[in-house]
């Protein structure tokens, strides 16, 4: 039985870790793009609800 548990935990574990890593990569990039766009001449008035 522990093979089954091992199988499930390792497989889903990898998928879960990868999913979380994707989430963080996206957030980091979103912030970087926001910073670059804000740095550019802010043609449009800065968005009051500034991104997190």
């Amino acid at each position: 039985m522990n093979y089954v548990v091992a199988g499930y935990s390792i497989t889903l574990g990898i998928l879960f870790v990868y999913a979380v890593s994707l989430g963080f990569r996206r957030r980091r990039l979103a912030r970087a793009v926001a910073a670059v766009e804000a740095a550019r001449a802010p043609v449009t008035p800065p968005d009051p609800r500034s991104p997190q």
Partner: protein
Amino acid sequence: MTTIAPPADPRLAEGAPATGPDGSARLRATLWTLGVLGAVSTGATVWLGIWVTPPDKVQGNLVRLVYLHPGVAWVALYLAFGLAALASLLYLWPRTRSLVWDRLAAAAVEVGVVFTACTLISGSIWGRPTWGVWWAWDARLTSTAVLLVLFLGYLALRRVPAEPHVRARRSAFAALFAAVDVPIVHFSVLWWRTLHQGATVLNPTLSPEIHGSMAWTLLLGIVALTVDFAWMLVVRYRIGLLEDRLGAEELDRAIDARRAEGGAA
């Protein structure tokens, strides 16, 4: 208004609250629903797979891995790499050429590589008790491994810095070469030596020997993993988009700097 993620799967916390630079409301909605659907269905598969469904007459509890391994394999081999090959073809076709396909192919390959790794791992874990070996030189296992190496090559080639369209074209070719090579490797390994019993899932009769509720769990497993794949694909695609936007921003600034270099012209 960060959503409180159910303990089972914090992937939900991912739903970025404000409409930051990355994403219209529609995108966040789809991501959120995909995330929830994926988490719930995966949780259900685990719950059904391990506790509810009966052990198999022959394999005992080992059969529970059947709810996971074929699902992961189906997503990795056919869904992910089929999508990558298709997207590469669309990029190469002059009329439909656009970086969208390139980003989609890149996303599909990266997520596909992760799923293929899981396929190999879960396959060998299943193989250990049934065949007594961690690794068997059987046709499907080996050609999956070759596929994994081919697409690691794709990712390695993609990391080389180059102008977006040049990189896209080179990656598209690499994906096509890999896709063309997979069937050849598959047949050559198949004739070479095969241990693997018939494709339990892929045969049209959907493996009658699996008991009613087991078949449903199996289906649920496949659906769950497909939804998870979809969620990861969309997020990875967004990452590709953001990277390109970042690159474009830097490019604009580089062009301005370059022109400034040329004096007041």
